[in-house]
């Protein structure tokens, strides 16, 4: 940019300018116009560059902008903090179905924002679990090397749930300890916040737990003194540590989802399954993973769908429909979708099916149906060659004979008909729910 000759906010510069010969004045004004044009041009270019971004980049850019806005929210009072956390959780929720587009980096950044404000482990653990499960669900569509993806999942688990505890602190599984006895081998640096002077022994038995529980009840009745209340709290922490390890559960869940997605266990076992600390959970998980691997592709697909519906994140905005439509159409013209990709989409569709039941959607659905009926009626009036009708019936009949087989298998060896149906359903649901555009996703401004 050209250096400013005159600063017109200053009286002396204005005076100097006024004193210049008219030719020189004209020249300066023209220069200023040119410069303004340059600035406008560069701004317009920046805007259109953004518009030209591929769908994937647009989505990442949109969520990143939202995250920046959230980071700017003040957090001086409890109320502000709560608002910031909730907004951030909402953003993560929206972002989750697209997490793989940037290797879940943005989502992790979002979780860091929450972590900085609130150290409530429960909330972080829950959000972490949802994110990690989704990483496994998106494994197939996630465009990255398998080993990199597995490492990202493991690292994220460590980030959200803490790393693996040193070997000496490991809790032994029931098969390794005497019946009725639970052991923690090291007294210090355990996950619990037990004080060194705690009256609770670190080599405890079920009898001890029962006794403490009984004492807790009695202590409550007798309006327990501080020491007794402290015992209650410590025992609760200890019990939750022993019986409810979220990290192990998540690692187990991820291992199973990956197996359902058709990933060979040898690839994820060292970094995911072997990170499970409880021997019992480790053994059970491996057994389940082997069982899944023995299943047929279709059986695995069914399991995957069911799991995705229970635990997966589902896109909930039209922007995402457009994204999936594009994905399907691209694949449609090539070789069809993978069963795993289809499973993900099925879960999406199921969610939209639910949305379609509300009153407003039902009204839109009615109108859409009327439009389609007009098209169908017109179509039937047109004459179709007999050979075409018979070919159509043959293709449809083939499908009826064997419902498990997708149509077109004989033609392309792929799942074209199935993908096409997915496209149609997404399109219909998009039409029913199509009320918000990209700009309408602005989470903060909606508040």
């Amino acid at each position, binding site marked *: 940019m050209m250096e400013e000759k005159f600063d017109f906010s200053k009286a002396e510069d204005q005076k100097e300018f006024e004193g210049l010969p008219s030719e020189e004045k004209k020249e300066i004004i023209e220069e200023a116009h040119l410069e303004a044009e340059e600035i406008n041009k560069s701004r317009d270019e920046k805007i259109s560059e953004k518009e030209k971004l591929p769908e994937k980049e647009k989505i990442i850019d949109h969520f990143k902008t939202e995250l920046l806005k959230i980071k700017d929210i003040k957090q001086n009072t409890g109320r502000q903090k709560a608002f910031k956390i909730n907004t951030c959780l909402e953003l993560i929720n929206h972002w989750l179905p697209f997490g793989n587009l940037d290797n879940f980096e943005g989502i992790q950044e979002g979780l860091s924002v929450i972590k900085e404000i609130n150290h409530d482990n429960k909330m972080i653990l829950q959000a972490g679990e949802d994110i990690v499960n989704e990483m496994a669900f998106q494994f197939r569509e996630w465009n990255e090397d398998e080993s990199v993806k597995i490492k990202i999942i493991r690292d994220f688990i460590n980030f959200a749930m803490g790393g693996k505890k040193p070997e000496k602190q490991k809790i032994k599984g029931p098969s390794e300890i005497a019946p009725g006895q639970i052991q923690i081998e090291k007294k210090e640096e355990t996950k619990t916040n037990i004080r060194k002077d705690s009256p609770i022994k670190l080599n405890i038995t079920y009898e001890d737990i029962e006794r403490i529980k009984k004492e807790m009840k009695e202590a409550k009745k007798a309006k327990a003194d501080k020491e007794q209340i402290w015992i209650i709290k410590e025992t609760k922490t200890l019990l939750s540590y022993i019986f409810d390890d979220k990290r192990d559960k998540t690692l187990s869940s991820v291992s199973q989802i990956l197996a359902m997605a058709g990933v060979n266990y040898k690839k994820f076992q060292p970094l995911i399954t072997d990170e499970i600390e409880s021997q019992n959970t480790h053994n059970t998980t491996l057994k389940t993973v082997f069982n899944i691997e023995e299943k047929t592709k279709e059986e695995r697909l069914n399991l995957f769908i069911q799991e995705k519906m229970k635990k997966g994140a589902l896109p909930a905005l039209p922007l995402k429909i457009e994204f999936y439509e594009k994905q399907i159409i691209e694949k449609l013209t090539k070789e069809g979708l993978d069963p795993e990709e289809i499973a993900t989409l099925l879960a999406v*569709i199921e969610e939209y099916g639910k949305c379609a039941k509300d009153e407003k959607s039902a009204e839109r659905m009615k109108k859409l149906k009327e439009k389609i009926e007009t098209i169908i009626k017109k179509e039937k009036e047109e004459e179709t*060659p007999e*050979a075409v009708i018979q070919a159509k019936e043959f293709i449809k009949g083939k499908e009826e004979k064997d419902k498990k087989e997708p149509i077109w298998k004989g*033609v392309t060896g792929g799942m074209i008909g199935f993908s096409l*149906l997915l496209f149609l359903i997404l399109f219909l649901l998009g039409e029913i729910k199509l009320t918000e555009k990209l700009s309408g996703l602005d989470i903060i401004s909606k508040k």
Partner: protein
Amino acid sequence: MHKIFLNLLPPELKNIASDLYDIILERSLTRTYQNLDEQTKAKMADIFNSGADGEKNAFLNEYLKDLPAIMAEEAKKLAEEIKTKE
């Protein structure tokens, strides 16, 4: 249509999707049919009228290889048609 897939859909949506699918299939077949020469058209009519399943499959594989791509195009066209219809 795929059993698992269809079971997930609300009945109304299922019927509409099925009808639309029918239109796309018919339009695509008609488009492909019109591009065939007269001799192949006659062959097609013959095979699909009285031929064995094997012959029909072979015909689809030989002459209708591009059908999936055509169906994708027709699906997009139909979607546009519905969107713009008043």
